[in-house]
């Protein structure tokens, strides 16, 4: 059952995570997120007055600009921009700052696999930093399916190339709540098990996809703990009162 990974990780093991916020001086919110050697910088500007054409002025608009490490943007980057935009729109509360535009700029620093998930996590942390009103946070995870049907998490670029298929999954973070246990269940499932975004590549059976979902959910709990911890660490402590 155990499969060897080049970097000696177990199938479910994520690469070391690092997140720092408020790293750009001029942006209204910023964050860098790295998973192993994959690193993404996200900057948030806004909300600024007015929405673009074709956008609903009754709601706040989120615009995403993807800057690759080198070269010009192509179809892949356009697709990433669209996925990020829809994902961020679905976790933000758009009815508070109506008729405004918030720009999210994603700069890829290094790509070593799981790039889109890394960017989603970075963008989410940057939105928190900018104080954009949000329904909940989002955590993204990449699940890879090997030829043998095993699932490995958070693949490197080398692993991604060898795989039969992979799924980028985004889930809500696990929240702390005062409500009694069980009151947050939807159709018998916890809220954080609902899929915000799913993008898959490659052939797989439906069972294999469901298996990916399950493993992704387990990993998203770890990720959301990490996100919460890093937010706690970096909030300015108003310890001057003490």
């Amino acid at each position, binding site marked *: 059952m155990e499969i060897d990974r080049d970097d000696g990780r177990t199938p479910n093991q994520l690469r070391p995570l690092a997140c720092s916020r408020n790293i750009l001086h001029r942006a209204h919110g910023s964050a860098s997120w790295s998973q192993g050697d994959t690193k993404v910088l996200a900057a948030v500007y806004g909300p600024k007055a007015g929405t673009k054409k*074709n956008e609903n002025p009754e709601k706040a608009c989120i615009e995403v600009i993807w800057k690759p490490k080198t070269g010009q943007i192509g179809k892949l980057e356009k697709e990433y921009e*669209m996925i990020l935009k*829809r*994902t961020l729109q679905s976790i933000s509360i758009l009815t508070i700052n109506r008729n405004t535009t918030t720009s999210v700029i994603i700069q890829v620093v290094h790509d070593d696999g799981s790039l889109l998930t890394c960017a989603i996590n970075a963008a989410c942390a940057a939105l928190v930093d900018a104080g954009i009103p949000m329904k909940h946070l989002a955590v993204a995870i990449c699940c890879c399916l090997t030829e043998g049907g095993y699932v490995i998490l958070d693949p490197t670029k080398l692993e991604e190339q060898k795989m039969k298929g992979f*799924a980028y999954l*985004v889930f809500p973070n696990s929240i702390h709540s005062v409500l009694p246990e069980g009151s947050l269940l939807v159709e018998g499932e916890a809220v954080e*098990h*609902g899929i915000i975004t799913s993008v898959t*590549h490659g052939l797989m059976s439906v069972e294999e996809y469901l298996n990916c979902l399950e493993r992704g959910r387990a990993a998203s709990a770890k990720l959301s703990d990490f996100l919460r911890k890093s937010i706690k660490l970096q909030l300015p402590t108003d310890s001057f009162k003490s």
Partner: protein
Amino acid sequence: MGLPNVSGDLSAEMEVDAFRRLFPLRFYERHLADSIRPDARPLGRARDTTMALGAVASADGSALTKIGSTTMLAAIKMEVMTPSTDSPDEGCIAIDFHMPPICSPIVRPGRPAEAAPVVSKQLSDTILSSGMIDLKELSLVSGKAAWMAYLDIYCLDADGALFDCALLSAVAAFSNLQIPVVSLNDDGKIVVVSEEGEEGKLEKEPVNKEKRKLTLRSLPFSLTCILHKNYILADPTAEEESIMETLVTVVLDSSSRLVSFYKPGGPVLAYTSAVQDCVALTRQRVKELQKILDEAVSGMEID
């Protein structure tokens, strides 16, 4: 007029069209509660689908498909190219999706539609990863010459479920594809043999006499669904897509393997049961589409 929260009371005294424009979501929810949609479809039913193969005479393969009023024209043009050194015995497929301004009021002349490159990328991902086409079949002379298939899909009318219709037209165009006959000339270069050329004049044997058709394995078919509260609406129109924003596109191949499960955000979260329901609806739809395609293909053969 009233505020949205009083719309419930107004519905009785207002004209249907006015109500639909002013409170679109309320209008739809009223229908959904009765398990019916404004165009009289049940929730899980896709719109009528039609297909015409060989719609473009100058292309090597083409198809015009309609799902409801969403219309796509797909055409394939084959060109000979030198294969890359990485894969000397493989051909190549270039897929482009176009949304001209005529297709929808939201596309303006002079400004490319935002959705076009995204659908384009999704299509090439789906077609390449489904393994429908063996790129080795597009090879002519290993290392020297191979086919480059330029697939262009034009959206003539965008009324929702763009990807479904585009994929269907792409698959249909490929099953309509007739690879041109080519032969080696004296310089060792590949030249296209004109169809009308008298057989006797040919001193060179065609390189690809037997390989005029691609063998298509496991065709991918897709279905887009809207998730709204607990409802699942199959094959949405543009109006439905703009009102209820959570879209899920499932692509299955003919042997029911999952090619893609695509959900780009959206306010509604998909739980396992919704995932399974969407897959089940797609399974049904794949059968329908397969039948429509088979009928269109056999219709062509009789002609």
